[in-house]
Every structure is written in C-alpha cells, then in structure tokens.
C-alpha cells in the first residue's frame, strides 16, 4: 500500500461517483449510521488522489455515504501513496473487503468484471474465484460474471435471495421487455430456485424454437387466466404456470403422460395399487406396487393386476 498519509479532507473533495475501486452493492446504511452517530468513525476511509483537488474512494465507501448523509463536511482520511498502480489499489480495496465480510453474488460479479481489466480469465479463475469462495471453474466465472449487468431490481432480488443467481444471469439472454415479464412472473409466484430455472429455461427454449418473444406466450389467454384466478393460491398458480409452460415446451411428452394417466385411471386399480411408467418413458420397465392387509386383500389386488393384461389400451402403450 506504500506510505499512507493521514489528513483531514473536505468530503466534497472525495468523488463518490468514482467507483473504480468500489465493489460494494446491496446494502443498507441504517446500522452503520447509528454506530457512527454514537462512536464516530474508528477507521478512517482510504482514498487515493486522482487530481490536484480530487480523491477516489478505495475503502470505506459506506462510511463516506453515511457522513455525507449526516452532513459531515470534513473527515480524517488515509491517503494512499502516489505511484501505486491502479491494479494494486483495486486489490487493496478488495482484500480489505474480503478480510471482514463475505461478498454477495452481485459484488462477486462486480469484482470479476473489474479484475478483467487487469488479469486474464485463467488467472481470475485459478487465483481469484477461490478467494471469492467460488470453485475455480470457467463455468462458475460464466455464471457469476453477467450478474453485475442486470437491472437494479433483479440485482436487489439476487442480493435478497429472492432469485437464484444462475436464474438471474440467464435473464440477460432475453430482451429488456421479456426480462421484465419473466422477472415479474418469478417475483409474483415466489418459485424455489430450481423452479425459477425451469421457468426461465422452458421460456427460453420455446421462444428460440418458435422464433417468438416471451411476451407472445406469457401474455397468452391461458396463462393470464391462471394468474388472475382468485380461487388459486400462490403455490397452485405456480404449479399451473409450470404445467402450462411444460406443455408448450414438450407437447409430445405431456400428451404421452396424459394418455398414460387416462389409461391408468380406466384400469380402476384403486388407491392401493400404484402403476408407474419408466422415467420419461425411456426405459421399458413399468412398475406395479401395492400394499395389502390380509390374504383376501392380496388376492383382490392380484386379480386387479391380472386384469391389466387384457386391457387393449394399456397393451398399446406398452407395445406401441
């Protein structure tokens, strides 16, 4: 860090819009403000001279914002020595942050974006991803890097944990309008992370396959009806929306599932006998499972099962 000089600076001389060395995102200042009001600033912010009368902030961005908010005009700051390279100045700020807190996904993304100015992808993956608590793989880099380019409300949702970081990054593959629509849908229906990804993946695939935009099918009648149905609670709406999209994405598979369920219903196996198809109908093994209480019950179930082999519709499904 070189020699540090401590000096009382006019807050106006510190350019808080210059975020060259800042990686902080998604914070509230309430607690910090209370602390500063009570005990003042124990660690002076670290700044670097950028011109004769102006400084850039290196460490202590939030402290300075609070001071500004509190109307403090002058503040004791640590000023980095001249001649320190921009890269090393950035690293000073980064390591200071890493020393006392875990960065959120958006901050990690901002860090990666800024590191790209100074380092190759290989160095970032091998050296810096582990420092950020991430696995040193390019796929991780690719997943995290785009987050900083998202709209503020999506970034906020990532920081709050309302949207999965991987799902959020995928939103960048959509137009602004489609991104907004999808984000609204995910926000309203409060899907789990896996389901968020499923919704985004299916929407993307349908749009690519059909050469249409997301709004073409998200604004479709069937979906609107689900979303506005006041008899449905949020999880029910979520399930129906997922089914609606799956049906658009996989019409043949959904039809096969429906046909199988219909044939199974007609077999009248009752509640105790469970007949299941191979996963995705890929294997050739169907499964029958049942429970019984006594010998009569067993015989009854076996009779029902034996009757299946005479069912033409079931035979058609099994033998094609």
């Amino acid at each position, binding site marked *: 860090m070189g020699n540090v000089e401590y000096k009382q600076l006019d807050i106006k001389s510190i350019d808080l819009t210059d975020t060259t060395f800042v990686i902080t995102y998604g914070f509230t200042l309430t607690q910090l403000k209370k602390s500063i009001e009570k005990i003042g600033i124990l660690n002076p912010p670290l700044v670097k001279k950028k011109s004769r009368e102006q400084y850039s902030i290196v460490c202590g961005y939030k402290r300075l914002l609070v001071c500004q908010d509190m109307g403090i005009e002058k503040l004791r700051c640590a000023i980095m020595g001249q001649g320190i390279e921009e890269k090393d100045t950035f690293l000073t700020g980064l390591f200071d942050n890493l020393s006392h807190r875990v960065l959120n996904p958006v901050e990690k993304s901002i860090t990666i974006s800024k590191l790209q100015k100074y380092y190759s992808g290989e*160095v970032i993956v091998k050296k810096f991803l582990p420092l950020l608590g991430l696995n040193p793989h390019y796929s991780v880099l690719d997943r995290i890097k785009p987050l900083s380019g998202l709209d503020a409300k999506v970034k906020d949702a990532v920081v709050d944990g309302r949207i999965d970081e991987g799902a959020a990054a995928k939103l960048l593959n959509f137009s602004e309008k489609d991104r907004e629509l999808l984000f609204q849908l995910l926000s309203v229906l409060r899907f789990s992370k896996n389901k968020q990804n499923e919704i985004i993946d299916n929407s993307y695939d349908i749009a*690519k396959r059909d050469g249409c935009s997301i709004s073409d099918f998200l604004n479709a009648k069937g979906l609107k009806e689900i979303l506005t149905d006041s008899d449905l609670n949020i999880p029910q709406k979520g399930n129906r929306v997922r089914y609606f999209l799956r049906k658009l994405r996989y019409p043949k598979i959904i039809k096969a599932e429906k046909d199988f369920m219909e044939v199974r219903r007609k077999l009248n196996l009752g509640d105790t006998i469970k007949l299941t198809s191979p996963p*995705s109908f890929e294997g*050739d093994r169907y499964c029958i499972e049942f429970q019984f209480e006594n010998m009569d019950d067993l015989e009854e179930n076996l009779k029902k099962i034996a009757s299946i082999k005479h069912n033409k519709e079931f035979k058609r499904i099994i033998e*094609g």
Partner: protein
Amino acid sequence: MVRYIPSKIIVDTKVRDSLLTHNILNNLPGVPVEYVADTSTAIDAIRGRKDPLYAGKKVLLLTENRGRFLKPCPGTKEYICCGYRILNFATNCNLECSYCILQSYLNNPAMVVYANIEDMFAELEDELSQDSESIYRIGTGEFTDSLALDHLTGFAKLILPYFAHKQNVILELKTKTDNIGNLIDLQHNGNTMVSWSLNTEEVAKREELFAPSIDDRIEAAFKCQNVGYRLGFHFDPLIYYPGWEEGYQRTLERLFARIDTRNVSWISMGGLRFLPELKPIIQKRFPQSKIIYEEFVPGMDGKMRYFKPIRIEMYSRMLEWIRDYDPKLCVYLCMESREVWKKVFKEVRVENSENLAKILDDTGDKK
C-alpha cells in the same frame, strides 16, 4: 472444402523425431512451430482464451499418447453397442458441427495428433496377434474425423498398407470430409472401408459449418467406390425438424443415384443425443442453432435423447426408405435399446451388443 491449416503448431519434444511429426511439419512450412517439454502450459493458455474451443482448433498439438491407442468404443450397457474398437490417433475436429459431443467431452481444446505412432504399431501388432480368430472392427473416427487432417498427417498412407496385410481386421475410416486424396492409390486389400456421416443438406448447411456439402461427400464416396473400397454411411445424428422427411429422402435419393448398394457394408442410424453439459455450449457457440429445442429426455446413459416415439418414427421411416433402394442392406441402430430395435425392425434380430457385433463382423468380412 477448405482444408485445415492451423495457425500454430506445438510439438512436444518427446515426439519431435516421429514420422508423423515430420510429415506434418513438411506439409505446413509457413506455420509457426513451438517446441515444448511440457504441454500443460500451452493447453492451459488455450483454456484461458475467450472461446477456448474455437481457439483450440487453431492450434495443432503433436504429442504422445501415453495410454493405449486401441480401446473399446465407450458404449454404455443400457443401450445396444456395435462393439467396435477405437484407434485413438488424434482428438478433436475442425469441422465445427454445432452438435459435436467432443465440445463437452474433451479436456484439451487443441487439435491433437498422437505422433508416437511407432508405439501405436507395436501395440497393434501385439493386440492383433493375441486373437487371430476374432474379427477386429476398428475405427479412427470416434474422437476426431478420420480424414480431416489426412492431407497433413498422411496417416492413411501408413495405416492402410499395415492393415492390408492383416487377416482379421476391418478398419473403418469415418469422415464428413472429401479429403480422400491419399486413399485413391493405396493398397487396402479390402480391409479398409470408408464411411461418411450424412445428413440432410439443410442440417449440413446450418449445423455442420466447415464440413463439405452432402453432394461433395457423396462424390468422395463415389470416387472411393470406383477404386474398390467398401463403403458405410452413418445417419448419425438424425435431426428432427420440420421437413426432416423430405430432407432425408432427398439425401438418400442423391446417395443411391451415385452409390451402388452392393458396395455398401452398412448404414447406421442414431438420433441426436448429447450430454446435458453440451446444451449451454451449443447455445453459446451456435446461437442460431435450434436443434436442442426439440423434445429431449434423459436417457438411461445420462445423455439427452429425443423422446422415444420420435426416434422410433424417424428410424422406421428411414429404414423404409432405405429398404426401397435395397431390402438387403445392413442397417443398424447406434446406441439404442432392445425395445427400439424391436419396434423399428419388427423382429427380434438384435437382442444385445454381442448380436450386433456379430452381424457387423460378418457383414464387414464379406470382401
């Protein structure tokens, strides 16, 4: 077709004196060459590039194969495999097919030629002498295109004469190229067959970016037919898209207008399948491609496959059209289940991988 020329050659010092290294360096006089004792730094540097898969294809790495050259095809037990063996003399391919499984399979993004072929011949000699009764069906086109680099390596000129004197070998060169210059005058003694991966012209144009047109591939097959090679054709991957029926019928029509079915050893079919990790790679590298947006399900081997009725429909129609040209042609399915075989062929001809291997051994052996 534009022949492959790398931007740079990296030579592992362990193979600097190999015959294959000499061939390649002589055929690429203007291309910068770097000699390295340890290839890992060079490979890491490619991995660090923005599109390592694309960057890797510009680098030709000549190194040694420290493992075995001859390996069984990595088929899985859940599906019926033709049981051929892979002669692993090179990895990667420059043809830039969107669906190429190598994009998610290979760790090393460079175009690699294993130049220690002296070791390869020693291994072959040892292996082939162990069981003189069995037929060895060997292919070189699993982890690379068999002929894409042949104008540089001259590999065919080394391997074909070697196998020409073996009694129990069928070598299959699988390619999408028309790079057959080295094959025309070679003595093969019927032990080498050349096979082409075919598709519809639409798929070739959209998804097989640097591969020759279907007509050029058929023309190359025609030339090989004229100098006595047995031929094979692989409709793999079959791609399902609106208009696939007309597309594949047109390809078959063009194929059999030039190729006499009596010279064809076999035709295989396999629906598009891919490891789940390949999908984001295709989306990123080939954003215009739509082939991954059809209805896929996880297969029993973990690969994504077309929903079974789609596969059965495609295979059945293809079989019907092929049979119209020659009902006796040997047609087989690559990595399919017993159930699909039965539904497509309407008979229990192939129950398991051993059955299929036997059929192909017998078919290939009819010189």
